[in-house]
Every structure is written in C-alpha cells, then in structure tokens.
C-alpha cells in the first residue's frame, strides 16, 4: 500500500485538478473542446473519406441544403482537416458578414 502525506496532495493537487467549467446555453465550450480534441487526435492529411470542399462550404453557407449522406455521416467528427476547413470557412463568413453594409 502507498501512503502519502496530506501536504503532498493538498493544495498542489487542488490547483492541478481539472476544474469544472460552466458552459452557456449554446454549449459553446463543449463544442470548442470537441474541436480541439479532433484537431489533435484525428489527422487526415490524405483527406480519406472527406466530403468535397464545396459540400463543406455549403454546410456553412446553406446548411439546410446539406444532408448527412453528403457529409459522409459523422466523418467530420473524425477528421482534423475537415474541422480546420470548417473553422476557416466560418471565419471567412463572419468576416464577410461584418464587412457587409448595414441595411
């Protein structure tokens, strides 16, 4: 059996301990974490199984027009390249929206 002193696991372990984090109504933190995880753990440099770039663009611009079969079901959840492309497309779209003149 291993014994440890209270001092050795006291404050230090509390500060190292992963804190519980509160998310918002849109589950923003959850999906941010998910994206981080997929970018780190699912590299796919050969784009195996990736939907065409136009489909990803459509998913951002007109998501209603894209079905699960177009996206190869849950492939994006296993692909850092698609995730990166989606983030880039979303950023571009937000920039366009910001620059658009107000009506």
């Amino acid at each position: 059996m291993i014994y440890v002193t209270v001092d050795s696991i006291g404050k230090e372990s509390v500060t190292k301990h992963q804190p519980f984090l509160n998310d918002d109504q849109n589950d923003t933190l959850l999906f941010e974490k998910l994206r981080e995880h997929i970018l780190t753990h699912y590299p796919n440099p050969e784009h195996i199984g990736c939907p065409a770039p136009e489909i990803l663009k459509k998913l951002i611009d007109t998501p209603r027009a894209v079905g699960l079969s177009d996206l190869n079901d849950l492939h994006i959840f296993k692909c850092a390249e698609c995730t990166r492309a989606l983030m880039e497309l979303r950023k571009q779209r937000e920039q366009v929206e910001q620059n658009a003149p107000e009506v």
Partner: protein
Amino acid sequence: MWAAEIPYCGTNVMPLSSPSGFCWNVKFPPEQEWIEQAVLDAIEIIWQRAQKTARSRCGDVSLARELMEVAIQKTVDRLQAGPPVAPDEAGRVLYRIFVQEARCRQNATRKLVCLGSNAELPPVAAQNPFLPVDSAIDLDVILHGEAAEVRHALLLRYSRTSWTEVATILGTTAASIRVRCNRALKRIRQRWSIHENGT
C-alpha cells in the same frame, strides 16, 4: 417530416448523392478522359453492393466511403495501364479492389483486442491529476445508435451553427432539439468535466 428525408440510420445503406463527390481528391490522367466517366459510372453501378460488403466484412457501413475512395484511386491507376473499357468492366475492377480493401480492413481489425470502450470508463479517471491519461473520446461509441436527426443536429452545431439556427433548419425548436441531443451531449460533457450552465 425531417426524419423521413433521411431513411438510413445506423447500419442501413446510404443513398448515393453524387459519384463525383467521391472523386474530388482523385487524380485522373488528363490524356485519358474516358477513365473519369467510366469510373463515375462504375461507382453508381456498385455503390449499393459496396455498402453491403462494408457492412458484412467490417461491420460498419459508414466505412464504405473511405474504402471506396481508396479503391477508386487504385482503379484509376490500374485503368491507366490498359485500353479503354466499358463502365461494366470498370465496375468489376472497382468492386474487386473495393473487396480487397474491405478484406484488408477486416484483417487489421481482427488483430485488435477490444476490451470495452472509453465511454464505459468512469469520468473520474480522466479527472485524476495523478493519471496523465489522454482522455481521448470515441465519438463513434458515444454517438452509436443515435437517431439521424441527432447526428445531423450535432454536426450542424459543430460547424458553429447556433442551436436556434439548427432548430430552424430541422423545423423544430431550440429547446426540443437540445432535449433530443441531451444524451449524447451529456456523455461528451462527462469526458471533459464541463457542466451545463446553472447545474
């Protein structure tokens, strides 16, 4: 009804939206234009059968697409070396290569020993500071058996579409779609110790 628009779920076969969707990453030889058309026709011919093969050999119909992409590239390489062939013949070549790929995948999977899944681990294990364990999650396990509507909603939200917009797209309310996705969200939350707002 939205769910009726997506008749496949889980192990059922997926409809083929467009054969060219498989080929955007494939390098067709510019001097042999017939190959591209023959391969596109071949995909249409064998797609249903290929999905059934993926399901029976690998146990997962969603692998059909990536197996198909690998098979397409190999088929193109093979067709380049010979004279022009009809779509039927291209289909036979493509299907043969597809089966080979499925068999390779099947053999590779056989060598793995699966002892449960990440989803079955208690969340405490990932929070323990003394265990530098990479809390990798297996989304396949977490989302296994979820309805097509839930999977679609999660993908839309993942692409940074807000729940309100997701609900509009799926013809429901934000609250309703979150309730539908709740089980999957809860299981993902457990992996990263993220609490819902106000809980």
